[in-house]
C-alpha cells in the first residue's frame, strides 16, 4: 500500500476541506476582534454565534448554553473545578468512573489535593459503569457525577440516560465528557438529563485547539480562565474565530452525515473484528460488542507487546494506537484495560483501530493481513509464547 491507512480516528481526525474552506476568510479577511464596535468585527461576532447556534441545535440546547474553550481538556477541567467551587457550600464529593480520560482523572486528582473527595466507580468486563455502585456512592455531599459518554480506548458507550436519571433523582449535577461521542451519535441533553457536556472539534473532522462546554441554564458556574468579557463573561480570551467557525462547520457536516457514516464505519469495523477473531489465535476484543462507538475496534493479542506491533504497522503505512505503557513511557498499561479486568501482560498487547468513512474494505483486508504477519513474527520472538506453547 502506498497510501497511508489512518486507523487512529479516536486520537484525532483529518480536518475536512470544507471546514478549512469555511475557516479561511477569518484569517486574512474577516480578522477583526469580535469584541470591537465596528461593523467589520460584528461580522465575526455573527459568525461565532452562528457556529454556537449549530452546536446548540445539535444538542437540543439553547445558544446561550454553549461556551467555547481551547480544547476538550479545558472543558473537562472547567466543568469539574467550577462545580467543586460553586457548590462547595453544598458538599465536596464528586463521583466519576475508573475509565475516564486523563482530562477528568487528573483534574480529580488535583481536586483531591484541594479537599474534594472523589469516588471512582467500577465498570464491568465490557467497560460499562456499575449503576448500582454509582447509586450507592451517592452521599448528601455529592455535588457532581461525571461519566464519559463513550470511552476513547475501548469505545464502550455508557448508560447516560440512566445516569442522568439517577443524578436527577438525587438532585446532583451530571457532567459528561462527550469528546468521543459528539458528532458520532445523536445526543439530546434534555432527553438524557445532561447538565454539562464537553466536546472537542478535532475529534469530528474539525480543527485542533477548539472545544466547548455546554452548561445548562441555572447551573451555578465559576470562570476558569479570568480576564475579558468574552463568552458571556465566563471564558476570557479573544475568541478563536476561525476555530469556532470551523467547529460549527464540522458539526454541521457531522450531523448531516451521521447515519450514513455510522453504517459504513460499523461495516468496516465488523469486517475487521470478524477476520481478526477468526484468523488469529489468542486474541480478545475489548469493550462491549454492541454498545460501542461505530468506528472503534480494540484487541488484545496475547504474548506480544503493543508498541512493537504499532511500529511494525507503521512500517506498513498503517497508523494505529495501543494501550501499551511503552508508548507513554510509564510502566503501567492503560488504566481502562486494567479496569475491565485485563491482566497487565494482556493489556500490554492491545491495539486500537478506529476507522473513518474514508477507509475502504480493501484497506481493512490489507491491514488484517499485516496484523497477522506481524503478530506471528512477534510471537516467534516472544518468551511468553515460547513458555505457553511448551506447556501445552
Amino acid at each position, binding site marked *: 500500500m502506498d497510501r497511508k491507512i489512518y486507523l487512529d480516528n479516536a486520537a484525532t481526525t483529518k480536518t475536512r476541506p470544507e471546514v478549512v474552506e469555511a475557516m479561511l476568510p477569518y484569517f486574512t479577511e474577516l480578522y477583526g476582534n469580535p469584541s470591537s464596535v465596528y461593523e467589520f468585527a460584528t461580522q465575526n461576532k455573527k459568525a461565532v454565534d452562528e457556529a454556537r447556534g449549530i452546536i446548540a441545535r445539535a444538542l437540543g440546547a439553547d445558544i446561550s448554553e454553549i461556551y467555547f474553550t481551547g480544547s476538550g481538556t479545558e472543558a473537562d477541567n472547567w466543568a469539574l473545578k467550577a462545580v467543586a467551587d460553586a457548590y462547595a457550600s453544598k458538599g465536596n464529593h464528586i463521583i466519576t468512573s475508573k475509565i475516564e480520560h486523563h482530562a477528568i482523572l487528573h483534574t480529580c486528582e488535583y481536586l483531591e489535593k484541594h479537599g474534594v473527595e472523589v469516588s471512582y466507580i467500577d465498570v464491568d468486563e465490557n467497560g460499562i459503569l456499575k449503576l448500582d455502585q454509582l447509586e450507592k456512592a451517592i452521599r448528601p455531599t455529592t455535588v457532581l457525577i461525571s461519566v464519559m459518554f463513550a470511552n476513547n480506548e475501548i469505545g464502550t458507550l455508557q448508560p447516560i440516560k440512566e445516569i442522568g436519571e439517577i443524578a436527577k433523582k438525587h438532585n446532583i449535577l451530571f457532567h459528561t465528557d462527550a469528546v468521543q461521542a459528539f458528532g458520532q451519535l445523536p445526543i439530546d441533553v434534555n432527553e438524557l438529563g445532561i447538565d454539562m457536556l464537553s466536546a472537542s472539534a478535532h475529534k469530528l473532522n474539525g480543527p485542533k485547539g477548539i472545544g466547548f462546554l455546554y452548561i445548562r441554564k441555572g447551573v451555578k458556574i465559576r470562570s476558569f480562565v479570568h480576564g475579558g468579557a468574552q463568552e458571556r463573561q465566563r471564558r476570557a480570551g479573544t475568541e478563536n474565530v476561525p476555530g469556532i467557525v470551523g467547529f460549527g462547520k464540522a458539526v454541521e457536516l457531522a450531523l448531516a452525515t451521521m447515519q450514513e457514516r455510522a453504517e459504513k464505519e460499523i461495516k468496516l469495523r465488523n469486517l475487521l473484528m470478524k477476520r481478526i477473531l477468526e484468523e488469529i489465535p*489468542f*486474541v*480478545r476484543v475489548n469493550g462491549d460488542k454492541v454498545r460501542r462507538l461505530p468506528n472503534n475496534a480494540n484487541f*488484545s493479542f*496475547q*504474548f*506480544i*507487546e503493543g*508498541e*512493537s506491533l504499532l*511500529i*511494525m504497522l507503521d*512500517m506498513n503505512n498503517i497508523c494505529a494506537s495501543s494501550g*501499551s*505503557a*511503552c*508508548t507513554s*513511557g510509564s*510502566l503501567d*498499561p492503560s488504566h481502562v484495560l486494567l479496569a475491565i479486568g485485563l*491482566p*497487565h*501482560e*494482556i493489556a*500490554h498487547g492491545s491495539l486500537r483501530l478506529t476507522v473513518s468513512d474514508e477507509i475502504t474494505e480493501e484497506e481493512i483486508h490489507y491491514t488484517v493481513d499485516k496484523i497477522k504477519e506481524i503478530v506471528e513474527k512477534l510471537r*516467534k*520472538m*516472544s*518468551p*511468553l*509464547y*515460547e*513458555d*505457553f506453547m511448551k506447556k501445552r
Partner: protein
Amino acid sequence: MYTEKVMDHFTNPRNVGEIENASGVGTVGNAKCGDIMRIYLDIDDSGVIKDVKFKTFGCGAAVATSSMATELVKGKTVNEALQVTNKAVMEALDGLPPVKVHCSLLAEEAIHAALWDYAEKKGIKIEGLEKPKSDIHEGEESEEY
C-alpha cells in the same frame, strides 16, 4: 523516535531464537511492566561465547537492545561479556529516547542472568558477577483469553 540503528535491529533482529541445552539461560523483566528478555548462551570449554540467542516480549527498544546485546557478546569470553554495559549497548544503537533507557539496562541484566545460570550449572564463580535481581522464572503464569 528511534535511531536508524534501533529500527534496523528492531525490524531485523539478530540472533532471535532458542538454544537447546544452552550453557546458560537468563530471563529478566516482568510481564506486568511490559518487558521480558530471555538470553540463551552457548559457551565452549575455553569460556568463549560461541552462540547466543534471545527472545523478547517488549517494545521496539527492548527488541533492539536485546538484538544488539547478543551481537556485542557473541564471540567474546565470559569476562569480556561481563564488561558489556547498557551504555555500550545504547552507544552501539546510536542512543535511545530517555524513557527507553531501562530497556538497555534490562539487556545488560539478561546477559548477566544467563552468565549466572552458566556459572551455577558449572559450579563456578565468575568474578564481579552478582546474582541477578529481576530474574523471573520460566514457570510464571500468563493467562489465556
